[in-house]
Structure formats: C-alpha cells, structure tokens
C-alpha cells in the first residue's frame, strides 16, 4: 500500500459554540445530535425523528471560508460528528454568544428569539429550537424578507402545533436593526487561528472492537490520491460524501460500517460552473451550492431544486451522493439522462468519462478504485425546450413519487427530436427510447401525447410502495406526457 504524504491525526477537532473541542474514538463516528445531547449536555437540540425529516435537530454548521465562516442549518441527527472536523458548530444555546451557553439565565433573547416569542411562534416548543436556528441563518446577511422567502427557508422544519402562520410572521417581523451577525458574536479570526494547526492533516480513526460493538475504521483524506489509494485498499468501505443518506441508515437502522471513507475534506471538488456548452457540477458541491449557481445557467433545473429535500438536506447533501446512490426516485437523474450528461470518474489510471445512461445501464457500477469527480451536463440549446417535473405527496420536503424530464426540439409544429426520462417508474431512472422514437417527426398536438402515453406504458415497470401505488405511477407517466404537451 502506498504511504500518504501528508500528516495524520487520530482525532477530529472543531469549535462548538466558540469553544474548541477534540473528539476521538467511537464518539467521532456517531451522529452529532446525540453527541451534543449526551456528551455535551446541550439538550436544546431536539431529536424528534432521527431521520433528517423534521428539522428539530437543526444546528448551524459554520464552514470556514476565505473571510470567515459560512453558517448554514443542517440536520444534526443524521450528520456524523467526524464531518464537523474543522468547522464551527453553533447550537441554539450558543446563539447569543459563548458566554451565554450555560449557567445563569440572564433572559437575553436574540431578535429572532424575540420575534418568535412576540408572534407566538412556539406552542409545545419541541420544534422551536430548530426553527430559531433556521430563522437565524436566514436573517444572517439579509435586510428584507418576504413571506415567500421565509417559507422557502422553513421548508425543512416541521411543526405539528402552530400551523406555521405565527412562525412565518415571526420570520418576517425580526428586528433586523438589532441583529448582530454571527461573525460579530463569534469573531472569525480566533476560530480560524484555532483551526489552523493540523488543518491540512488527514484524519484516521480506528476504534477497536469491544464486547458490544464492532471495530470501526474511518479515513478522511485530504487529497484525491489519498482517497483513491485508501479506497483500493479498503474495497468494502462505505464512501460518505454529504452523509444525508448514510446518516439516516446510521441514525435509524443502527448501521455501523467497519470502514468509512469520508470525502468531507475534498473541499475543492465543489465547483458549479459553465464551461462552453456544458454545466459542470463538482461531485462535492452541495445542492445549495448548485441551486445558487444554476439559476442563471439552467433556470428549469433551479426551479426543480426548490422542490428538492429541505434546505438542511441541500446544505449537506452533495451531487455525488444523489447520483451514486442511484435511487429510483433520485431527483437529478431524469434531468441528467434527458440532457445526456456524462460522469467523470477518477481512479488509479486517471479520469474516465461515462454517460449517465451507461452508468445506470450497468448496474449502477464503478470500478473499485474510482470516485465520482464531476458531472458534465450539455446545456439545452437555443430552440430546445427543457421541462422537469416532480410529483410528491407533500409539496415540499418530500421524495418524488414520479419525476420526469423532457428535452424537446421542435420546429414548425413538428417534433424533430425529444428526450424523455422518468424516475420512480422502474428500479432505476430511465429514458423511454420507444416513446421518443414514436414522437419523432410527429406533429405537436394534444392527441399525440395521449398516443405517446400508450407507447410509454410498455417501457416502464412501475412499482407500489409506501408513497404511491403502481396504478398511480402509471397514470402519472401518461399524464405528465400530456401535461408537458398541454403546457407547451
């Protein structure tokens, strides 16, 4: 096995409410929310679902930037402690500064907390800390806020008592003049200084097997070379990128992988750019980063992203996770299939490109030494129409029942070319080549989509699950074809 060039740490460190802490051993491999509650006594962070599906456990994750920290809410119940390495974590107790975390109650409230009290935004109080965290992040760097903005920010926070109206009102009536930015409450310089030593080290934590639990081995590389090398040596390792999927398995199903390869520190794999006629998505870009950049490049995809998971999930989840897991309901795959995107893997032999269709066709598979590096999406050309659909039981913060992507080239009322991809209608997302072929050369009229639906019926194999029945999925395929036609 190759030796690594860089230095190695056997622990992680991060700042928690302004205080530097080190975590080693099994604690580093657990989830952040129980760590905060049990090990640090910070019980303000609530665990209501442990699935990343309610937002009660929201905390602020401050990732270092050039100038300070970028604070975003994430679900701490499915966020591994090791992924906090080098960051600043602020919990509800820490919102008013490091000296207010514990001890005597001086009754000081932040403007967001004040608004929540004054607008009666808390009833039972269990979801409240998470909501205060979300609204605090929302108001950081913001002067004005519409109800629409506040709702978008709160999509990842469920509340069973209030019906949300008082919370939205609170979000809109925060005394912004009194707001102290988090960078003022926690000046970044001392934190950045404190994170400096060992910041470029890789992390390797080995936990020996004990009488109750298996041995575990975590590696957090600093370079692609280290990552690939370790992956080859540990072919069974679970690769964790954003952790929103593995985190649920670890939190709920008790998954305790023997070997974990975390990509948390391959920070520079997060580009979201336009290169010529292609959209380039770095594997480690979070969906929030994608959403911020992609609006100007592919507005239709940006719109779809607003229906995707929750802000907390988009702040943690990455491009790589959504694609490599290749869930039948992955929200990105129909879009990537319709646009005939390519995946770029890197491995021992260098880079390799494969189309998304081929990647899915074969399994989905990649070689043992490979990691997804980036995704290259040919952009819709002038005269092409791209439409993306997502149907879910709940409008926001829900997985797809069926998702669809259409890329149409038509001229003079005739379909020159169309690419159609669906998610949620087969074990993997897929293109519908027969339907596409049927439509080619046909006139654009309402009857044609109805006929296309009949063709599509033979290309799909929908299933029944907790979200929807096979019949519903079948109807949706036909109706989304019709809807696409009707809305042209």
């Amino acid at each position, binding site marked *: 096995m190759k030796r690594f060039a860089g230095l190695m740490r056997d622990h992680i460190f991060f700042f928690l409410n302004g205080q530097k802490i080190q975590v080693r051993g099994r604690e580093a491999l657990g989830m952040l929310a129980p760590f905060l*509650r049990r090990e640090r*006594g*910070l*019980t*303000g*962070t*609530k665990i*209501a*679902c*442990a*699935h990343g*599906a309610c937002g*009660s456990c929201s905390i602020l994750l401050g990732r270092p930037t050039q100038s300070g920290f970028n604070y975003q809410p994430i679900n701490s119940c499915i966020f591994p402690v090791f992924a906090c390495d080098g960051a600043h974590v602020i*919990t509800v*107790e820490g919102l*008013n500064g490091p000296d207010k975390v514990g001890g005597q109650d001086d009754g000081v*409230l932040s403007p967001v*907390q004040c608004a929540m*009290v004054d607008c*009666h*935004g*808390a*009833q*039972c*109080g*269990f979801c*409240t*800390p998470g909501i*205060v965290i979300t609204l605090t992040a929302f108001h950081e760097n913001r002067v004005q806020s519409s109800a629409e903005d506040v*709702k978008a920010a709160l999509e990842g926070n469920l509340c*069973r*008592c*209030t*019906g*949300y*109206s008082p*919370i939205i009102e609170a979000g809109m009536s925060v005394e912004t003049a009194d707001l102290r930015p988090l960078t003022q409450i926690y000046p970044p310089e001392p934190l950045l200084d404190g994170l400096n030593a060992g910041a470029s080290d890789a992390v390797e934590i080995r936990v020996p097997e004990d*009488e*109750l639990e298996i041995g575990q081995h975590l590696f957090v590389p600093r370079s692609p070379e280290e990552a690939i090398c370790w992956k080859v040596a540990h072919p069974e390792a679970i690769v964790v990128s954003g952790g929103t999927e593995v985190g*649920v398995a670890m939190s*709920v199903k008790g998954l305790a992988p023997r070997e974990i390869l975390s990509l948390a520190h391959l920070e520079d794999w997060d580009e979201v750019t336009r290169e010529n006629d292609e959209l380039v998505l770095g594997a480690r870009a979070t969906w929030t980063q994608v959403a911020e950049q992609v609006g100007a490049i592919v507005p239709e995809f940006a719109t779809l992203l607003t229906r995707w998971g929750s802000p907390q999930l988009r702040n943690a989840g990455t491009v790589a996770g959504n694609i490599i897991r290749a869930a039948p309901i992955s929200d990105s795959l129909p879009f990537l299939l319709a646009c005939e995107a390519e995946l770029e893997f890197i491995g021992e032999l260098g880079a390799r490109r494969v189309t998304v269709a081929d990647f899915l066709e074969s399994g989905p598979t990649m070689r043992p030494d490979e990691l997804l590096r980036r995704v290259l999406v040919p952009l819709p050309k002038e005269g092409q129409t791209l439409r993306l659909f997502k*149907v879910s*039981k*709940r*409008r*926001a*913060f829900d*997985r797809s*029942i069926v998702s669809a992507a259409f890329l149409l080239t038509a001229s003079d009322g005739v379909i020159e070319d169309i690419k159609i991809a669906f998610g949620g209608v087969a074990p993997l997302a897929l293109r519908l080549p027969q339907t596409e072929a049927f439509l080619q050369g046909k006139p654009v009229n309402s009857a044609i989509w109805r006929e296309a639906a009949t063709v599509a019926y033979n290309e799909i194999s929908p299933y029944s*699950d*907790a979200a*929807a*029945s096979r*019949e*519903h999925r079948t*109807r949706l395929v036909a*109706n989304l074809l*019709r*809807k696409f036609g*009707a809305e042209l």
Partner: protein
Amino acid sequence: MPSVGRSIPHESSRDHVRGRSIFLDDITPHRNELVVDFVGSPVARGEIVALDLSAATKIPGVVGLYTFRDVPGSNLYGAIFHDEYFLAEDKVSFQGEPIVVIAAESHAALHAAKKAIHLDVRPETPIVSIAQAIEAEEFIGPPRAISRGHARDALEKCPHRLDGTLYIGGQEHFYMETQCALAIPGENGHLTFHSSTQNPTETQVMAARVLGLGMHQVVCVCKRMGGGFGGKETQATPPALMAGLVAMKTGRPARCIYSRETDGRVTGKRHPFEVRYQIGFDSDGRLLAARLEFYSNAGFSADLSTSVFDRALYHADNAYFIPDIELIGRICRTNLPSNTAFRGFGGGQGILAIESIIEDIAEFLDKDAAEIRLLNCYGAEGRNQTPYGQIIQDDTLPLLFERLADRADYKQRRQAINEFNATSQIHLRGLSLTTVKFGISFTTKFLNQANALVNVYTDGTVQVSTGGTEMGQGLNTKIRQLVADEFAIDAANVSVMPTSTEKNNNTPPTAASAGTDLNGSAAVNACRLIRERLTEFAAVRLSEDVPIPIERIVWEDGCVFDREKPEQCLDFGHLVHAAHRERISLGERGHYITPGLGPSRPFFYYTTGCALAEVEIDRFTGEMRVTRADILMDIGQSINPAIDLGQIGGGFVQGMGWATCEELKFSDEGELLTASPSTYKIPGVRDIPEDFRIEFEQDSRFPENVRSSKAVGEPPLLLGLCVWTAIKNALSYAGPRGHVAPLNLPATGEEILRCLCELEDKCP
C-alpha cells in the same frame, strides 16, 4: 390591568426559543440510570412458540430482561376495559406488541440485547381492515345506536335519495416528542414517574395496577409534553410501565424513550371509519331522513374506542337538523395497534360523513352546497333538537355562516370559479364553506370534574397546580391569567407548577377541549375561597373601628382598598403577609364540576365555527394547493386571543393534513408501511393556505363558563375538513353533471387523480 383577554405569550416561550425548556429526555440522567427498550412481536397476529433470553442475558451491560412472568401485579389493564396485556403472554395481536422489556447500562448494550433475543412467533392470518372484521364478526362491545323517528320508513317517502359508502382513513398524531417516561424508585416501595402524558392519573392508576402497588405509592409528574393531540391520553402508559417495572426490579432509575419508528408502529392513531349511508331530501335540498351506519377500526383492544365511536354518532348531524334519523354501527376489532384519542375524537368522522353527503346532494340537485347547508342549519323550535335530545340554544351558527360568506365574497368567488373551470385546461378549482358544531364535555359524565391547588406566599406571589397538563396548547398560560385576575395581580407573579398526582388527585385527562374550562374553573374556585378570607381580613385591616362592609372592598391593580377611601390601599403582598401573621390560611383546593349534564344533555355547550376553503388541483397530477382559507368562530370571550388563534390555525392545518397528505398504509400482514417520517407526511410550511384569515366573534359571550370563554382545542381541526369538501367540489366540475366524485379521505394526489380518471371516463 386584568390579564384575561390579553395576548400574553406562552409562559414557556422564552425558554422554548433558547432551548432551555426541559422535556423528558432533557432531564439530566441520574448517576445509575438505566435505559429501557423492548422487543415486540414481528407479526400482527400469532402465537409465541419460543422465547430464549439466555444469550441476551449474558451481554455485558444488560441488567435485566423481563416478560409477563415478571409483572408483579395484573398484566391485564386498559383505559375503560381491562383488555390489554402489558406484555404479551402466549398470543400476539398486533405487530410490535411488547413481549420482552430490556434494561441496560447503555444504548449499545440495549441494541446488542435486542439482536440476541431469540423469538419465534407462529404467524396467523391477521384481520387488518374493517371489511375483514365485519366478515369475521370481530366487534368490540354491542351495536351502538342513536335514533329519532322512523328513518327507514321516512327514506321510502323522500322525493330524492342517495346511497353511498365513504372510507375515512386514520391519522398519526406525530407529536414531535415521542412517547417517553422516566421512573425513579423511592422509599417504602414508592415510584415516581416523569411522563409525557395528558393523563398523569391514568399513568398512576395503571402503574399501581400492573406493578402491584397502592396508588398512594405512585406519583406521576408531567412538566410538559412536546405535543399530545390525544395520543398521550392513554398511550403514554406502556413506556411508563416499562420504566416502572425496571425501576422496581432493579431499584435504579430507568428511562424509556420510544424512537419515532417504534412510536409509529406500536401506538394507536385516529380511528379509520367506513360509513354507509342513505339520505333522503327534497328538491330544495332539505334533509328529511338519514340512515348512517358507522364502522370504526379500533385495533386490537378497546382503549377509548367506545367513547370515540359515541362522539362520531353525536356529531353525525353536525349543525344540521334531520327529522328522521338512525345512526348505528359497530366497533371493529382488528390486529392493528389500538386506535385511540386524537383531537376531534370521532367527531370529525361523523362530521365528514354529513358534509360529504351534502356535497353529493348539491351535485345531484345542481345547487350550491353552501345554500343547502344554510337551509339545513338548526333553527327555531321544532328544528332545534339533536337526535340525542339536546336542545340547541343561542345558536349563532347561521349568523356566522352568512357573515363568513359575506366577508369572504363567497358568491363572487363561486362565479369566478365557474368561469375558471370552464376554461382552464390545466387546473380545476373548488370552493367549500362548511360548519362545525362541536359538543364540549366528556361524554363520560364523571370525567367532567377537576381540582386545583393554589398556594399564596407571603411575598404576594402565587403557585397554582392543577390536574391539567401542558402540551403546547397554552393551558398553563391561561390558568396563570385566570389566577392573576382573581387576586388582581400581575400574571408575572403567578407560577403554574408541573402537574403531579401528588398535588392533584383523581384528575381527568387533559382532553375533550375542556382543559381550561375544567382546570381553570377549579383554580378560580380555589382562588375565590382564599380571596373571600382575605377580603374579610382586609375589611378589618382597612377599618378604623368596625369592619368595612365586604362589598365595599375593591381588588384592583395589585391593591386592595375601600371603595370609599381608595387612597388607603393595601398592596397584595403586604395584605397576605399580614394575613399570615394573623394565622389566616393562604392555601386552598378548588373543585369544579361541569353543571347541567344529563342523559339528553351530554354537552355543556357547543363551540361553533365556519370555514371556507378554496383549492386548486392539477388535472394531470392530482396535486393540490389551498389558495385561500377563511375561518370564523364563536369561542365566547377569549382568555388569550393569541393562544386561541394559535389553536385555531394549528388545528385547521392538522385537520387539513388528515384530509389530504397524511396517509396510513398497512400491508395485508398488518404491518404499517408508513411508520417513518420519510413516508408519513404531515403538512409543511408550503401546504398551509396561501392566504389564511382567521377571525372570531369579538362580542360573543358565554357567561356560564369561566370568564365567559368557550373551549377551542378540537373544533378548528374539524374545520380543516372544508379543504376536503373543496377538493370534492373541484372534482364535481370534472365529471358530467350529476355524477358524484367518489372521493375518500385522505384526498392525496393519488386519490384525487383516481377520482379525476374515473370521472373523465364518464364524460361522453
């Protein structure tokens, strides 16, 4: 300034927003505390053929494994009937039914023990659906009925008649804090429970019964719940019993916190119902006769199912007079977790049935459903008696109905929707204005009582304790306001203390919307006894020679004075301090019973309201959004308008969740497929009405109740059903005229699309 009537923030809100409020799992662990969990049945119905604990026992950190054989008292218990096993004996009757309780030093040991327990259950074919239970004649209790006149005969003579069946799904409570309890052993065999329960007395009674103790050896404390909604009325008991059993066996504190998935799987929910109906009416839409047959899915045991069922029958008329009516039905026993109380408590199922029927009549007669509703509202003598004999008095509903229709421009919007639906190829809109008349009181008479303990301290501050529990609804805030006003002091000088059976005994659950009515009244009664003594004392204290006549003593703004000499006032703190010196008692217990209840008057009064919802559905996907909702309610004089608004808005959204996106799916084997928050969807911030207007009548009063207020907890949830009727209305535009949309509840996108396809097929 009086506190009552002001929008004082929730008394815990400042702690809530800073994460300082202590919920059960936030209580700092005791030094030697154990964690508790259980292993339950893998199947919904079967026989336990083998159970081997030997491997699990040997796991380091496992302190105890307990089965029904270890239960010191009675293993059989239940809220109304004792028909539930705390730990399964030889048979299992729902998936997840607890069989082995595990006590361990750590979560790791707990997980290891769960894996090491060998359990073999021989599965039998379970009964899952109402239809299966009817087929197998598996019922709980005898048939139930309320009737007036001769519905069968009358139906034959009606000019028009519609028959049908409506399927109503259940609903998961999804309180954010799952079921949980902490048991701490004490001296002399005592056990103290901290429980997230709406019913500390129930926990006390059941713990005493199952653990073989006297009630005097058990204390149950509830500081707060992270939501209850009925789900913690009876079903907070099992985790408490598990923790209690462990605490008793080991002598160590023990805590049991259900995971979200465990909670989803093993706890009961809102009862699914099937309603078969025959309705007779005339050409104006006047209801003449009705026969409704209700079947509820109770799950494996009775729990509160009989009371829930009764309330469904009591609300099957909703706000409408039906001369000849027969309401009958059965409670079905199935192999599901035992369905239980849920905000609305059967009332919603009764109301939905009649509201759905009215939508169908409107479609049938080609009339506006709102007209039919108004036409049928209870009215003057001869049309003012419910099927169960209660006279509707001072009914403001028709007035509310007309006011809301007017304020929300019902007629213009109906016109606009007619035009929109005639042209839009993509969307369909619907509009519906419905009513709710919700009976306030437990239908079990003895529960309509409460007690309160008020302690005044010598600095003029007050502590009050009642049997009422705080689950976010603001009960403690309202009680604080009520008590403050009785002594004319600032609410800041009143603390509402954690609920404990040590202070308040034999209490009813905090339920039936009556928390403030009962506990607030009891607290006021206690205060008045103290105040009476203090008034007499002040009359002496403020006089120069002979005591001042009592009626001249005024309590105002923290002071007590003689009306004729207001300048000589006694500050409340000084008054009580002096009274104490004179050995006058500054503590009191108040007791309250709801007046006037009887066989033909199950309810003290009704809380009424109307709601109007407008929805838009996507013709292709069945996706739905509520573009606007308006609510107008009569809640008497509000004790705290902000808290009541919170109850109304929150209840409405919870109700529309039940009606739309919340779907419980069970497999044929009786496994809940939607036990996880990834698959069970409560409304999120995007689902609420985009334009949401809530009002209540400002000048309404109900002097018979505490401070002229009315209960508010459950009724607004049922108003949320107008979203469902609005969807039904939108669907009515899709099919040919006269074809009723066969919509069931919940109206998920899938259900809406199913109906659209069915109606489309009927179109020529």
